[in-house]
């Protein structure tokens, strides 16, 4: 039963108060994109065994979406941050690099 701290309302909520939203920072491809781009956007996933950037909604709380970096192996949550961004905050990246030497990066 995971806990994550919602950056929008400050509540540390448990998984039952949250809704999982899968991989974060996907770039939307709409009309005009190639089949390959669209397939990548909609289906193909990093699914890393390690640090995963993902979306969560505090659905039983403030209702806001936020993003999290979490290990799919240790389940450690390196940080949560605003959903209104296209890339993870630099300090979070630095923190993960420090904790996980050899980490391949978020992209």
């Amino acid at each position, binding site marked *: 039963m995971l806990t994550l701290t919602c950056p929008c*309302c*400050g*509540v540390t*909520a*448990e998984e039952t108060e949250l809704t999982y939203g899968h991989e974060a920072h996907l770039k939307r491809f709409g009309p005009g994109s190639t089949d390959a781009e669209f397939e990548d956007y909609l289906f193909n996933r990093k699914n890393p065994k390690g640090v995963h950037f993902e979306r969560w909604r505090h*659905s039983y*709380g*403030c209702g806001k979406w936020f993003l999290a970096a979490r290990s799919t192996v240790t389940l450690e949550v390196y940080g949560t941050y605003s959903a209104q961004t296209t890339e993870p905050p630099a300090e979070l990246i630095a923190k993960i690099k420090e904790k996980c030497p050899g980490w391949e990066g978020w992209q």
Partner: protein
Amino acid sequence: MPEAVSALKGVSHTGFATVAEAGLTGMIQIRADLASPRLAAVLAERGLAVPEQRKVVTGGGRRLAWMSPDELLLFCSYDEAPVLAGDLTAEMGGEHALIVNVSDMRAVFTITGAKRDEVLMKLCPVDFATLPEMELRRTRAAQTGVALWRSGPEEITLICFRSVAGYMMGLLETASRKGGEIF
């Protein structure tokens, strides 16, 4: 105007704590930029300030609760809500905001007594020991969403959607049954 009735018509139960449906309550949902000076002015007009994160403030006989970074919930009398919602909308001028009367979509409960926390400890994943006075916590009770806050001495107020009022009362009644005291 025809009479309005709340979902459970004010029913109550007393076990090791008293759980009651509080009846009709006016509620106005305000979605806006909470840093907006105009919003602050409109609220100040009524003796209210924009609450801090998760806080409930009072003023002018009304309560105002922080719901999310762009949402407040104003508690007022049921009868004044439609007009008040209209007034607030008008006073915001052209500023982007959504202010709407939602007095009918929720049910309000009070849980009172020395052991009130024990009732909700059975239902909500909330650390009641550290929940301050007048802080609104949005969470779930068993399988439905709620918001609750310490509304007075030995009293917690809880709101949920109207359609699940019966379920909510079932939960509260069961959880407060005598013999089920935790401590």
